[in-house]
């Protein structure tokens, strides 16, 4: 089958405005969804599900969040880890205060709390940009991290200071806690990611997404179009932090199953997600998935994959190798291709469109 749009004429604006105007793309998306919903749970081992797929999905969500802020709106943030933490703690508090309500509702609601915190820390963005904004969000990161440790109310005064996750069910099936199977957790995670990705795609392809990109590309001109800079930036902070918060709640409840959160939501996490966005592609939703896949799956592949095919590699060496690889790639993408893997993917598709005739 050839990949091209020949013969697919758009006769209406809605069909031309579709996110995937080319039929082959829609088929491809269908295949990916089918694989994610049917093939992977069918064939993947528990290890793959809980150590590869669930982390990948959590990071994808967080990367989409940061991409909305940094890639689409041009506001750099080093506080993603902390905003994820706000989501995790909010979810924890909500679920202990209202144990009767389904956990999925609290995972999503947690996003609203981090959205609120995101708005507060986003206010300086009207006045400051670039490096200075990065420093301001760094302050948010440290302040929130401090809260996570110093406010025992947040972790219900547990002696360990950790989030303790009990069993929670959906339709009688445990989805959170020690009794939840990897399959169940994976399905919940997948549904959340698919739904939120679809919504993110709707937002960035409409009026709001255009306002964000306008502010990113030329804020004075945007202002003259009647785009209010503060509102637009704060909305980006809100939506971005919402995604980060939900990702954080998912991380704690669907992936880790509890633990000491101040470690999980530290500055390293913020940087990791920023790297995903840079490597995947600034201003691209699909790039967020590429970046998350790359950075979250690479360590597992190196640590377990290489020894499995007979190449001896100690855990520590793998660790070093990852640092070197990621560092090199970031430098490469920042200099050569700011649109990251997503752009390479597009170039590939463009080539395919011409194939087999070069012109």
């Amino acid at each position: 089958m050839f990949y091209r749009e020949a013969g697919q004429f758009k006769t209406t604006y809605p069909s031309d405005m579709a996110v995937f105007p080319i039929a082959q793309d829609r088929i491809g998306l269908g295949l990916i969804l089918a694989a994610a919903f049917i093939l992977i749970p069918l064939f993947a081992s528990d290890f793959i599900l809980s150590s590869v797929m669930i982390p990948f999905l959590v990071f994808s969500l967080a990367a989409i969040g940061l991409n909305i802020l940094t890639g689409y709106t041009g506001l750099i943030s080093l506080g993603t880890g902390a905003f994820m933490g706000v989501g995790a703690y909010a979810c924890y508090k909500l679920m202990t205060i209202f144990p009767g309500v389904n956990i999925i509702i609290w995972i999503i609601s947690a996003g609203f709390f981090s959205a609120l915190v995101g708005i507060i820390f986003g206010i300086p963005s009207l006045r400051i940009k670039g490096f200075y904004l990065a420093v301001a969000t760094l302050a948010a990161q440290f302040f929130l991290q401090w809260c996570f440790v110093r406010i025992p109310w947040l972790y219900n005064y547990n002696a360990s200071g950790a989030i303790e996750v009990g069993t929670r069910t959906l339709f009688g099936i445990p989805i959170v806690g020690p009794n939840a199977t990897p399959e169940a957790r994976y399905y919940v995670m997948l549904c959340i990611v698919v739904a939120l990705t679809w919504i993110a795609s709707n937002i960035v392809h409409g009026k709001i997404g255009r306002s964000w990109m306008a502010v990113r590309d030329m804020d004075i001109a945007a202002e003259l179009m009647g785009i209010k800079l503060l509102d637009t930036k704060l909305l980006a902070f809100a939506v971005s932090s919402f995604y980060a918060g939900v990702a954080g709640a998912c991380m704690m409840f669907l992936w880790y199953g509890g633990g000491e959160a101040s470690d999980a939501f530290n500055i390293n996490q913020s940087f990791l997600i920023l790297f995903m966005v840079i490597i995947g592609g600034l201003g691209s939703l699909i790039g967020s998935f590429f970046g998350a896949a790359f950075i979250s799956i690479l360590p597992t592949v190196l640590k377990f994959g290489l020894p499995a095919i007979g190449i001896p590699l100690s855990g520590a060496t793998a660790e070093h190798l990852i640092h070197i690889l990621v560092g090199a790639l970031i430098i490469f993408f920042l200099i050569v291709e700011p649109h990251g893997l997503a752009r390479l993917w597009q170039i590939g598709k463009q080539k395919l469109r011409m194939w087999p005739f070069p012109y």
Partner: protein
Amino acid sequence: MDASVQTKTHNLAKGDTLLAVDNVSLSFGGVKAITDVSFDIKKGEIRAIIGPNGAGKTSMLNVINGFYHPQQGRITFKGETRQKMRPYVAASQGIARTFQNVALFKGMTTLDNIMAGRTLKMNTGFFWQLWRHGPAMREEVEHRHIVEEIIDFLEIQAIRKTPVGKLPYGLQKRVELGRALAMEPELLLLDEPMAGMNLEEKEDMSRFIIDVNTQYGTTIALIEHDISVVMDLSDRVVVLEYGRKIADGTPNQVKNDQTVIDAYLGVPH
């Protein structure tokens, strides 16, 4: 652009004063960019603002659309007098603008750039934007129709989906005009729309400016260095030099004005 959409709530008739600038002075620290300048723009006319480099022309546009706040003077737009304009007010009251150094949204396509010009006319709430269905989609389609008319008008169909950063300069200027037109402005401020263009591109741009003025009745304030273009296009000309107004009148009056001739030939004062 739809004629029914275009002719909206203007209670001003052709020839009434649309904008008046009274005794405006603007300085940056010690630099006086504008000194006590007054002039008006009448509805339906093409008003040229000319003057040597650094005369304060761009600063004047920045005062009109609210980027710069003058230390002295008043701005009256559609009968409402203000000490200073604000960019949002200017935009929502119907003032659109192109920039001397193209200020497009470089990472966005031609289509998205012009669609961005419709922002103020789109009012479906956040809730519907989340789904991109129902009212949000209807609105998007409705505005896409209008944007397509602008694209046809400016003859830029072929670059609809090209990111504007990749376009040659002349086309970028054209897209920027399209983005301003998408706001359906009552007053369109053009800052050197033909700078850096070749003759053919200049002719195209002149034709678009005249068409915008005659077909849609849009009032235009035009900064331009090419005197022959100014003479051909404009109804009235205001001449600035070192931040002061030195002449104001029809192209012919201005052309024969001795102070203007001196200013352009660089006669020392």
